[in-house]
């Protein structure tokens, strides 16, 4: 083989390997972003499922809070029907606040607080709230990694060539990171 061919191979091979590595990293990150998005979706759906139960349970004891129940139920159906991300985010925030208010209201009803069904629901909802937060955290972390890779040189060349676009961050309100006001035994 002539010398010039060797020189070309030596110059091109690292570029090619780097390109393959970058491409694979982009694919992996995109998969993680998609996975993160579906995780958020799973947890939000779980919350939709729990809300009617919670409302029904609290209703049995706290009969004077009709307005609050309607508010939460209405936010839930708006979130389910939402087509655009901002609309959905707004409805989700309303649900988060509504659930917090429901738990605050429950404080005034000792019978309700002693109800096993209510305690189980409260744990499930607190757990789901934090899972939503963690899923969002994971999604946003992966979006940040992906967007950084797409935005910086030389990976942006590979990203452009294979049509990798930046993704949007998911912003909904942070659920409380402090323990819930109700500390109940296991």
């Amino acid at each position, binding site marked *: 083989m002539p010398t010039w061919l060797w020189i070309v191979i030596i110059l091109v091979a690292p570029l090619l390997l780097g390109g393959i590595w970058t491409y694979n990293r982009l694919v992996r990150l995109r998969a993680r972003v998609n996975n993160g998005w579906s995780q958020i979706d799973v947890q939000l759906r779980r919350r939709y499922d729990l809300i009617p139960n919670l409302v029904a349970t609290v209703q049995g004891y706290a009969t004077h809070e009709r307005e609050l129940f309607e508010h939460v139920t209405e936010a839930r159906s708006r979130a389910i029907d939402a087509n655009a991300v901002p609309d959905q985010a707004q409805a989700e925030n309303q649900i988060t606040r509504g659930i917090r208010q429901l738990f605050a209201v429950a404080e005034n009803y000792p019978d309700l607080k002693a109800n096993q069904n209510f305690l189980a629901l409260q744990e499930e909802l*607190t*757990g*789901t709230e934090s*899972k939503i937060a963690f899923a969002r955290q994971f999604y946003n972390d*992966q979006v940040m990694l992906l967007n950084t890779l797409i935005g910086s040189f030389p990976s942006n060349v590979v990203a452009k060539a294979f049509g990798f676009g930046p993704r949007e961050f998911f912003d909904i309100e942070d659920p409380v*990171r402090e323990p819930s006001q109700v500390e109940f035994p296991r």
Partner: protein
Amino acid sequence: MYEQIASNRRKTVLLIFGAIVLLGAVGYVLGLWYGNGLFGLVGAVALAVVLSLGSFFGGDRLVLASTRAREVTPQEQPRLHNIVEGLSIAAGIPKPRVYVIPEQAPNAFATGRNPEHSSVAVTEGLLSTMNRVELEGVIGHELSHVVDRDILVGTVVATLVGAVVLISEFFMRSWWWGGVRGRRGGDRSGGGLEAIIFAVGLALLVLAPIIGQIVRLAVSRQREFLADAQGALLTRYPPGLASALRKIGAASGIPMRSANNATAHLWLNQPSRIQGEGMGPLEKLFSTHPPIEERIRRLEEM
């Protein structure tokens, strides 16, 4: 983070190699004593290979069984399950299996060969003393070990060091009870050379478990700091783990029955078998975990 995973893999290979060499040396001496050094060497290395493979595929079950850990369902422990699932989502790993250990000392560990086959175990004492954020801090720390594959390093090393300790102790005891008379030939014509081999062999057998410990400690402490930091990154709330560590430090007087030297480094904090153990200067020098005060201080600085 990915570099950390790669470096952990390299360390695993090195540690396993080192432990196999150590085990081979112990086996050689033992074999020599009974008449055939090579036989002992081959035997010990074969044992090491089997144990390594065994610990790779079954070490987690062994460790879980030795602590009498019991798998719990989401119905039994909803809060624990919710926290483990939530933090697994945050870490981007599949949800590990969840175990509870019947011990009153607050402590926890994670085990398994990779994130797809991992388990998290916590003691009953931990569940009863920690609130939700503290529990999140603890689980975050353990899941960081899972993400970094520290559990693979830990489990394999625990098994290999366990084998070295086992063989050495077996030999020391049989020697103590006069079992060494069992060596073949039995003629005392060896003279000076045999005395030297005996001395070296004895020294090796005494030192082997200590060397094994040092291999383990070489990485254990630094990894704990790392898992603290990464766990805090998962929960985004360092005070949670700091507060949990403070409670664990305060409860250090509660002994742990299932604690032993071979698994000490797996735990969230170094367990003590009897009250006051771990207070000697040698024990401090050879500890698997950094001092709890130092860990709390670093978390508070975050």
